[in-house]
């Protein structure tokens, strides 16, 4: 029977990347010197599944590579090898190499053989170099037997009691093959136990009723035996006992071994459960923005949803009952109102539940930071402790995918510029170890992420002089402290004296701010000299819903994102000015704000072309302000964003569309796009009504 296994390849990759993530985070959690067996076990299992999987799929390069890692980890697991910093570092690097190997294999690219070979030989060196200095020079393979029972020197063979669970055959494992495999290790005698066999007519051919006692003669490594059973170890009762020349010793050891083995199995089961838990709670695979558009949803959320729909059905039947009443009187009206209130409530809850399906805990964005901080602090020779809190805070998957890079940038920045060198910290009476805190929490419809360091804080004089020298501000500008802090987000700004590969090229913070703005969020910084800085990012919980102001121009209704509106005002004709007869500006306090006439740039009819009869909505985008001239303000409401691109195409000036309460479509303005359109219209300076010419390229 041959199965086309290639269909499982993607699942293998996905699981392997998950496994690598687990290995990485567990390696970082590993305390050098005193290794927690639990942690090493977890790492080992991850490596083991990758090895097993890659072998199955014929990815031998990966299998070979993982094998060396696995051997190393196995020795650590058996307490045979000390967990050194060197080993952890090499293992971490190996995780990176493995990840890139899998990535290139997945994309059918060539492997980076050089790096692979280098780390491979490093691993080998570690393995062999230390193995020779090891006291137990009785070859690596015998080690685990030591851990089973004190000191077994003269193993004359093994007795294996193998009792498969009844449903083991359903997982595709064949006991006969296992026994055949054992046969290759040494001469075996097999005794089958048929006592569990039911009456012939009761036999289910898909179940396994037999158990075996297998004796292997000769000096066989326990590891080799275990390897034969590795695919079935969770699906059977298995005891492996060494036979000794002196049979009287065997009995107590056998007991001990059984207990031990059961314990291992128990642990393993617990771990498996834990892993399952972790998987369900984490809902989705490693962030892969483009290709994998699947999402793992916690079953609780789905149950919630089903409950909600049930409620909705009940409300619906209640409403239709009222509708069927023959004499519609005051009582019925009251019940109708009650029903409608209920319906509204259920609809809102249903909407929230559906939104929650897209929500993922922010730990997905946070999980890369322990590694980043670990690597960078070593590189920069700083001592840094990373504290994370609020990792369970949930936010939309799309937002999560896009916030990763800005976050990395801010953390790098805090590491590089914020935290001082240990000596300087000590001089200033601070703890030599700096702290970076990542904190996430919800605050009224938004998610807030704080990146806090206890470093030097922003140097106002230096920022100001730098900003003046690069022409961002003028010397006589009187700036408040917050305004000065804000300068670091200006394009082309960097105070780093030396450009390191960590940061300092000045193409950083402005990009961070732009990315965050693109998500509809804000970023600001608070800082105190010598005490530290706090970067605060505020993001909308989801990109699918937007708080909007409904406006009317002629017969059309548009939606302006509330977040970009500064104020709306009635036109005071005295404040109205015209520049060269075409461009209108409005004097608002000290600012002159260009007036954008939607009917001009969108080519639609409006009630009036006289600005002074309309209303102005002042909006801001990236520090620029415009006043949009509208006929009427209609009200504010939350709208669900629908894409125009799905069926039509991207249209400049519009970020999408939504469906209003009455079922009609309203278009959502993209302020940035409106500004671009306006500039194009001004540039083309042919202000005719042939709007078609103004479309932005």
């Amino acid at each position, binding site marked *: 029977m041959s199965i086309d296994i290639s269909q499982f390849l993607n699942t293998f990759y996905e699981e392997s990347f998950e496994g690598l993530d687990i290995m990485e985070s567990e390696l970082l959690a590993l305390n050098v010197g005193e290794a927690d067996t639990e942690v090493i076990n977890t790492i080992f299992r991850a490596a083991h599944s990758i090895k097993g999987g890659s072998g199955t799929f014929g990815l031998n390069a990966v299998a070979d590579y993982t094998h060396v890692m696995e051997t190393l980890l196995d020795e650590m697991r058996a307490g045979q090898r000390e967990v050194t910093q060197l080993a952890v570092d090499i293992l971490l690097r190996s995780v990176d190499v493995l990840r890139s190997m899998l990535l290139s294999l997945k994309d059918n690219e060539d492997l980076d053989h050089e790096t692979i070979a280098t780390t491979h030989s490093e691993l080998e060196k570690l393995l062999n170099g230390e193995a020779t200095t090891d006291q137990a020079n009785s070859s690596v393979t015998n080690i685990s037997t030591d851990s089973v029972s004190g000191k077994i020197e003269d193993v004359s063979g093994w007795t294996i009691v193998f009792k498969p669970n009844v449903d083991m055959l359903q997982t595709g494992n064949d006991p006969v093959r296992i026994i055949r495999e054992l046969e290759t290790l040494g001469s075996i005698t097999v005794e089958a136990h048929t006592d569990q066999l039911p009456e012939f007519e009761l036999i289910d051919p898909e179940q396994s009723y037999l158990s075996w006692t297998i004796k292997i003669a000769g000096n066989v490594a326990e590891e080799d035996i275990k390897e034969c059973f590795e695919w079935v170890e969770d699906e059977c009762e298995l005891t492996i006992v060494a036979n000794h020349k002196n049979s009287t010793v065997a009995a107590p050891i056998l007991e001990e071994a059984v207990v031990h083995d059961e314990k291992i199995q128990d642990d393993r089961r617990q771990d498996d459960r834990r892993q399952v838990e972790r998987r369900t709670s984490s809902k989705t695979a490693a962030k892969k923005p483009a290709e994998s558009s699947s999402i793992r949803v916690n079953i609780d959320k789905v149950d919630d949803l089903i409950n909600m729909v049930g409620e909705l059905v009940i409300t619906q039947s209640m409403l239709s009952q009222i509708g069927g009443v023959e004499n519609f009187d005051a009582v019925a009206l009251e019940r109708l109102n009650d029903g409608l209130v209920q319906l509204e409530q259920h609809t809102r809850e249903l909407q929230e539940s559906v939104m929650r399906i897209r929500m993922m805990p922010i730990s997905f964005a946070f999980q890369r930071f322990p590694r980043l901080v670990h690597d960078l602090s070593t590189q920069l020779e700083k001592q840094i402790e990373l504290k994370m809190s609020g990792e369970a805070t949930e936010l939309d998957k799309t937002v999560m995918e896009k916030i990763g890079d800005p976050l990395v940038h801010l953390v790098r920045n805090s590491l590089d510029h914020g935290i001082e060198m240990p000596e300087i910290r000590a001089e200033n009476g601070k703890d030599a170890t700096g702290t970076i805190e990542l904190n996430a929490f919800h605050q009224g419809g938004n998610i807030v992420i704080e990146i806090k360091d206890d470093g030097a804080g922003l140097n106002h004089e230096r920022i100001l002089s730098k900003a003046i020298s690069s022409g961002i501000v003028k010397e006589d500008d009187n700036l408040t402290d917050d305004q000065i802090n804000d300068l670091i987000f200006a394009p082309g700004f960097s105070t780093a004296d030396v450009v390191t590969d960590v940061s300092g090229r000045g193409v950083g913070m402005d990009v961070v701010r732009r990315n965050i703005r693109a998500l509809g969020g804000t970023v600001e910084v608070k800082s105190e000299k010598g005490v530290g800085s706090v970067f605060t990012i505020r993001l909308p919980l989801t990109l699918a819903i937007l708080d909007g102001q409904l406006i009317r121009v002629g017969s*059309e*209704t548009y939606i302006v994102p509330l977040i970009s509106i500064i104020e709306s005002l009635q036109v005071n004709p005295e404040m109205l000015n015209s520049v060269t007869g075409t461009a209108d500006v409005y004097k608002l306090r000290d600012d002159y704000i260009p007036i954008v006439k939607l009917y001009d*740039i*969108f*080519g*639609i009819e409006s009630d009036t072309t006289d600005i002074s009869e309309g209303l102005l909505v002042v909006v801001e985008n990236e520090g620029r302000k415009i006043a949009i001239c509208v006929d009427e303000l209609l009200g504010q409401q939350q709208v669900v964003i*629908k*894409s*125009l*691109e*799905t*069926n*039509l*195409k*991207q*249209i*400049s*000036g*519009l970020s999408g*569309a939504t*469906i209003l309460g009455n*079922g*009609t*479509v*309203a*278009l959502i303005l993209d302020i940035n796009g409106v500004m671009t*359109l306006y500039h194009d219209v001004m540039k083309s300076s042919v202000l005719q009504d042939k*709007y*078609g*010419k*103004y*479309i932005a*390229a």
Partner: protein
Amino acid sequence: MVEAAQNLDQDEVEKEEINEFLTFMLHGEEYGVDILRVQEIKGWDAVTAVPNMPEYVRGVINLRGTIVPVIDMRRRFDLEVLEYSETTVVIVLRILTEGHADRTMSIVVDGVSDVYQVEASNLKASPDFGGDIDTEFVKGIATVDKKMIVLLNIDHMLNSKELSVADMDAI
């Protein structure tokens, strides 16, 4: 390989056998579209205009939560513009685009006419018109009951550069 070839042949045969078209009227002429692409037919209702689009894009409508563009076929073919009447219908179509997910678009026509099964032998390739209708939009011409039906290539027509997702240099 042999099997695959046979499958292919079978597909071809099937295609030849089942050629059903929904036809609609436009300026006194009968046009047809592949019936498997028709999602639904509905009456004309108000649309939301989309700025800076060619005039034949009337706007967008809400089709059970999906935003669907509405294209006026009279304007698309530069025919005389008529007031929309009770018989004016909107045909919602599934459009295939290379390298892009299926799109849902709709066309406004004077009225739906009939459903025809056209045998392959009655399908003729389109001649060069040299007229308003770009020949690329025409899949072929079928003769049914001595009537001529122009079969449209809607994928081509509704993915023309003004409407395409990729091409941003509109108009």
